[in-house]
């Protein structure tokens, strides 16, 4: 997949650890996924699965005590002359170095979960917008301001010239998130990372923002990594889906397959547990038992096995599943699809019958 001309970002076997005063927290334990050019990849998972840490790794902005100890993030920038894409190894760049900063905000941009706190309260919207533009584009102040006002207009903010001079506290949550998007898109990035951009917003505002992001994506053909815990938003926004559980991607596939033929038991259980409008009123929901364990006490074998409804004792708690490619580009980390191991399994026949 890495050789695929359409890949813009490739994450391979990424391990990220946090070194705290009382031990190492293994936040990512081998994350693999890839983002295709012009596509929207949804990363979905429950709290603590490592989806935000993944975003920080791609931006190379881990907090001081965090480090990517293993694995690789390869970024394939805009096509240069001769249609030869040059590969950038993000994990190899110093986080504060010039090379990384030239990518950050310019080629890969990011928007955050809390619109209320992601703008600096003491500077105007305009000055924060100009910060990004003048840093990455060789323009005069006047040109920069034009680009900035344009960017504000592009995200459908009313009276962009007035918003340019406004302070963040004078704007509503939805307006601030639009400003964040304007800042992120002002330098025409090829990849946008959106970390739960609508979680803190009301449902009608969320609809506004999702609508805007979709329209802008269609217009600019940028790629988006859309991180969320809301399966409805994933279905709405994404082309591909990566489902994460406890620091690993357990399934990556197209959005249609994820919702209509999910293969990993976790994906299936997650989909069953959400209330749907089409349900008969007040039926019982299917639940996943237990909860996500702490990253410092990861269960052996498949990390999901203690909660898995399809667990095979003696197999799932012993062997760590590898990525298995199924048809249609679907990839899954589950021993149920490991023919070799399943063949040795004593419960195989029983299971085969039950299927």
């Amino acid at each position, binding site marked *: 997949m890495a050789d695929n001309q359409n890949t813009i970002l490739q994450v391979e076997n990424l391990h990220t650890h946090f070194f705290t005063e*009382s*031990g190492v927290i293994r936040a990512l334990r081998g994350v693999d996924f890839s983002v295709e050019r012009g596509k929207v990849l949804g990363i979905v998972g429950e709290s603590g699965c490592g989806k935000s840490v993944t975003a920080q790794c791609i931006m190379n902005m881990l907090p001081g005590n965090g480090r990517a100890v293993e694995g690789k993030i390869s970024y394939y920038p805009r096509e240069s002359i001769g249609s030869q894409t040059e590969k950038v190894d993000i994990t190899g760049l110093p986080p504060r170095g010039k090379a990384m900063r030239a990518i950050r905000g310019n080629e890969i941009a990011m928007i955050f979960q809390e619109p209320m706190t992601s703008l600096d309260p003491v500077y105007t919207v305009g000055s924060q917008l100009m910060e990004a533009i003048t840093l990455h584009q060789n323009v005069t102040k006047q040109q920069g301001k034009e680009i900035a006002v344009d960017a504000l207009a592009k995200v459908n903010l009313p009276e962009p010239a007035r918003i340019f001079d406004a302070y963040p506290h004078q704007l509503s949550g939805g307006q601030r998130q639009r400003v964040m998007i304007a800042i992120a898109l002002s330098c025409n990035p090829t990849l946008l990372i959106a970390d739960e951009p609508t979680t803190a917003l009301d449902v009608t505002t969320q609809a506004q923002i999702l609508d805007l992001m979709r329209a802008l994506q269609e217009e600019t053909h940028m790629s988006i990594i859309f991180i969320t815990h809301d399966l409805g938003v994933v279905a709405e926004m994404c082309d591909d889906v990566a489902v994460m559980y406890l620091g690993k991607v357990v399934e990556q596939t197209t959005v249609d397959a994820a919702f209509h033929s999910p293969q990993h038991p976790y994906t299936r259980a997650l989909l069953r547990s959400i209330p749907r409008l089409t349900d008969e009123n007040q039926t019982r929901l299917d639940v996943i038992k237990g909860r996500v364990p702490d990253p410092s006490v990861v269960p052996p074998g498949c990390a999901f096995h203690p909660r898995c409804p399809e667990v095979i004792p003696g197999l799932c708690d012993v062997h760590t599943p590898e990525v298995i490619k199924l048809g249609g580009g679907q990839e899954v980390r589950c021993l149920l699809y490991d023919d070799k191991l399943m063949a040795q399994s004593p419960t195989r026949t029983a299971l085969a019958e039950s299927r």
Partner: protein
Amino acid sequence: MAKQAVLIPVLDEEDPTLAAGFAKAANVSGDIGQLSVGQLMWRRFLRNRLAVGGAIVLIFMYSMILFAEFVIPYDHFVSNSDFVTRPPQLPRFIDSEGNFHLRPFVYGTETVLDTVNLIYLHKDDLTQIYPIHFFVKGKPYKLFGLIPWDVHLYGVDEPGTVFLLGTDRNGRDMFSRIVIGGRVSMTVGLVGVILTLIFGSVLGTASGYFGGIFDTVLQRGIEILMSFPTIALWAAFAAALPPDITAITRFFFISIILSLLGWTSLARQVRAKVLAYREMDFASAAKAAGASHWRIILVHMLPNALSHIIVIATLAIPGMILAETALSFLGLGIVPPAVSWGALLQDAQTVAVVLKFPWLMLPGAFVILTVLSFNFIGDGIRDAADPFAI
């Protein structure tokens, strides 16, 4: 009540995320849920070496002033004209001829006349050796003012003297004076803090919980009090104390004066906490269950605010000790013949004196040690409480 409970299978184990975080913060392994928040904080506190060190120092110093009469070799008020400003007699093990003594000893005193300044100067007489004895019989006294006893911690045989920290200008034993002075200096802060705690938490809680006019008036009052330079106001009140009151009355008045300004910051912080807790759902839940105001304040607010209050109180004590020292140093606090560290330091007001008799500054070292210990403890409690506080 004859309901049959539905048997829903117990699905949940402990929450690993939060529990693990708390366990790490408190450095406990195993069942975190059995330990109360207070116990968790205590365990975390014990890991802080500076704070525990401060606590040990303070325990040591407070026991010293508690058993002061036993610890000191001389009465702190008895002058001795033969030994005016004698330098400290350091306990030694090896004499001038290089012989090792198992029992520590001090040298005797040799007095010479400084013909230029016309004063007597004292120095160690290397020929006289007085071994230090422990638990010696001496002047009778009453321990805690109750138990008559005559045993002292240490002493030397007559005609030797043991002025471990030297003597002052009246030939009084500095060590004895420092220990007795510590009684005032180390407790004035405690009494002041107790008053501060009472004023601060009651007024802060009332203004936060009930709000309204009372709150407004109190907040404005605090602002006004805070716009005085503390020492200046303290000194003004202290100067107004009638001159003919007893030392003990004066001590209590000084404590009250110190807490007069101290309660303001505590009241503000308690108020802020109470305002926060008042909006928290557990207080609403108690109200919904029919709890009275008193129950909500005493069961739900106070225990949660307690760690904050303790931190503020601990960190307020050094301020009061320093203030007493400064006031007494200026002659406005504890006045002779009563002694406190600040009053003792009055003897060391000029460079000339300090250069000639540096040991007169020693009470200051005790001030620093005490204040530093309280600061370390206060900081330690704050660090310990931080991860668990709401």
